[in-house]
């Protein structure tokens, strides 16, 4: 009798468990099919969900840091603090008026809002790219002629168009102003007549700046919170993020194989495949060779991943070892930029030619096509309302910078070129929308 009772209880328990399991399966299927927009009618397939997950921050995606490969100080808080001071210091220039922050303003996601820097007087000047998330790119500059943040910083320090200092002058300034910071991290500063040691010390200065920039991680935007809610990785205390019907439509276009195909190049959590593509965006000379020259330059660069100043093992330099070069496809090809924080990084494209995002999308709708050109895009041929949907989606990627506010302000020792009020608008959660940048508008027809 007691045994029968036990059996009944067991069967009852099993039945309840089975019911709960079926319920759980139902809930999981329902949630993976993605009822999640404001109208509650968006359906995402498993394949689409996999794609969305691969794009989102905060869903377990941890983008690789290329800076850490070659810069052993990339994760050092002391190096980042030193780099932070250098980044805002106008003494780090021949004119005494130029700091890294002169062109990389924190409140503009570390761009400058200009078509190109005023000092860039070369025939084909380029727009200042964002530094937010740049540590996750294997290539720096629009043509990828550097393969780390620190080597990019070193080029800017020596370039007469930027800081215009010699290596010896940089080290003299460090001796005068930053001896304690430097020697605590890197050891004794070299004698003035030891050029090999000066090169090494110069490299260390670049690595401190690289460590600072590597901290500038993009913060999750509304899109990321939306996807986190879809795939169940949202913090239980966090509110569920909804996207509007227009934003969802834009997202669908963005990932569509047939329509937008944006995902082809703008993939991964930074929305870039870190490749170089030719899309015939007009520049100011028509003579910019882009990646064709950039690939040659990075291979020659003494500060590259394979060089003596790199902290990397040779096998970690795969991007450089297997670099694509001497290929006509690279002519006038430029780096696929991140699409995060676009509200703050106008004007757009390598030449800064488009003042508004809507202009960029219009160009993609009808790109410049010339006989004999290699073009990596096909015309979108979208209706105006679809372009608006795409733009609405792109705005959901604005998240600001995921870093403590102190890193976005000039440190105490910086020269007072940058006021706190100028940079304080940046916050961990996001920025205020800046005023429309003053840019020269040039018709894409010319």
């Amino acid at each position, binding site marked *: 009798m007691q045994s029968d009772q036990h059996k009944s209880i067991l069967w009852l328990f*099993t039945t309840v468990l089975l019911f709960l*399991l079926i319920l759980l399966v139902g809930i999981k299927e329902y949630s*993976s099919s993605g009822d999640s927009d404001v109208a509650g009618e968006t359906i995402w397939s498993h394949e689409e969900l996999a794609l969305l997950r691969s794009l989102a921050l905060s869903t377990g995606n941890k983008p690789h840091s290329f800076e850490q490969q070659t810069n052993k100080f990339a994760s050092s808080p002391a190096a980042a603090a030193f780099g932070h001071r250098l980044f805002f210091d106008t003494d780090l220039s021949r004119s005494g008026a130029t700091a890294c922050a002169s062109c990389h303003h924190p409140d503009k996601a570390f761009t400058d809002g200009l078509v190109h820097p005023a000092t860039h007087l070369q025939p084909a000047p380029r727009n200042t790219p964002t530094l937010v998330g740049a540590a996750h790119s294997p290539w720096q500059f629009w043509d990828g002629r550097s393969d780390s943040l620190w080597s990019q910083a070193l080029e800017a320090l020596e370039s007469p168009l930027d800081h215009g200092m010699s290596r010896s002058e940089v080290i003299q300034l460090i001796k005068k102003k930053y001896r304690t910071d430097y020697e605590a991290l890197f050891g004794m500063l070299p004698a003035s007549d030891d050029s090999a040691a000066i090169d090494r010390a110069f490299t260390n200065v670049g690595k401190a700046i690289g460590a600072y920039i590597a901290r500038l991680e993009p913060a999750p935007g509304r899109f990321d919170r939306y996807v986190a809610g879809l795939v169940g990785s949202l913090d239980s205390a966090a509110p569920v993020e909804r996207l509007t019907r227009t934003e969802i439509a834009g997202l669908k276009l963005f990932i569509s194989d047939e329509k937008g195909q944006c995902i082809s190049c703008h993939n991964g959590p930074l929305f870039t495949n870190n490749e170089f593509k030719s899309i015939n965006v007009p520049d100011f000379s028509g003579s910019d060779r882009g990646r064709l020259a950039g690939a040659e330059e990075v291979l020659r660069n003494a500060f590259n991943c394979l060089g003596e100043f790199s902290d990397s093992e040779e096998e970690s330099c795969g991007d450089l070892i297997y670099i694509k070069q001497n290929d006509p496809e690279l002519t006038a090809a430029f780096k696929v930029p991140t699409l995060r924080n676009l509200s703050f990084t106008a004007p757009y494209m390598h030449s800064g030619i488009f003042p508004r995002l809507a202009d960029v999308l219009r160009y993609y709708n009808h790109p410049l096509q010339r006989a004999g050109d290699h073009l990596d895009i096909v015309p979108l041929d979208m209706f105006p309302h679809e372009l608006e949907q795409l733009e609405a989606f792109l705005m959901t990627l604005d998240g600001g910078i995921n870093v403590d506010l102190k890193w976005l302000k000039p440190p105490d020792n910086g020269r007072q070129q940058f006021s706190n009020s100028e940079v304080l608008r940046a916050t961990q959660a996001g920025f205020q929308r800046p005023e429309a940048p003053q840019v020269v508008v040039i018709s894409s027809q010319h």
Partner: protein
Amino acid sequence: MNVLKALILLFIVFSRVNAEGVTQSQLPVSERFYSDRLDLQVEIRAVEHFMAINQLQHWNVSLMRLDGTPIVIESLTFDGGMPAHRHGLPTTPKVVVAESGAEIRGIRFSMPGVWRLVLGIETKDTGVILQFETDLRYGQAPSFISAEFREL
């Protein structure tokens, strides 16, 4: 109790299938292509990231008779691209041929979509070209949609 154990096991298995539909361990690490006419099979295999999007990967290439008898590869070429996007490979892979086997190092697939890949294989006696197309999608196993052998 066995029923209970079975249910618990079922629950554990179900909960391990993630939203991507395919778990990492379910993704393949190799693929084989067969030719009855030429009595050949070719295997491509990667230790890591086989056919993954945006991951640098290195392949080992093996040539065999259909019965599995290995054939020594004397030289190997590799090329490819995305016909629909009119571009080639985003890297310059390097081929290493040794007695222990042939290797293609530095392959990267920078986009989802259909990639056409071409291997030119020469042995002591013959030469063959293997051309195949594969459709790559995030979080999914590669879909091999065509393969063709041609004699050199």
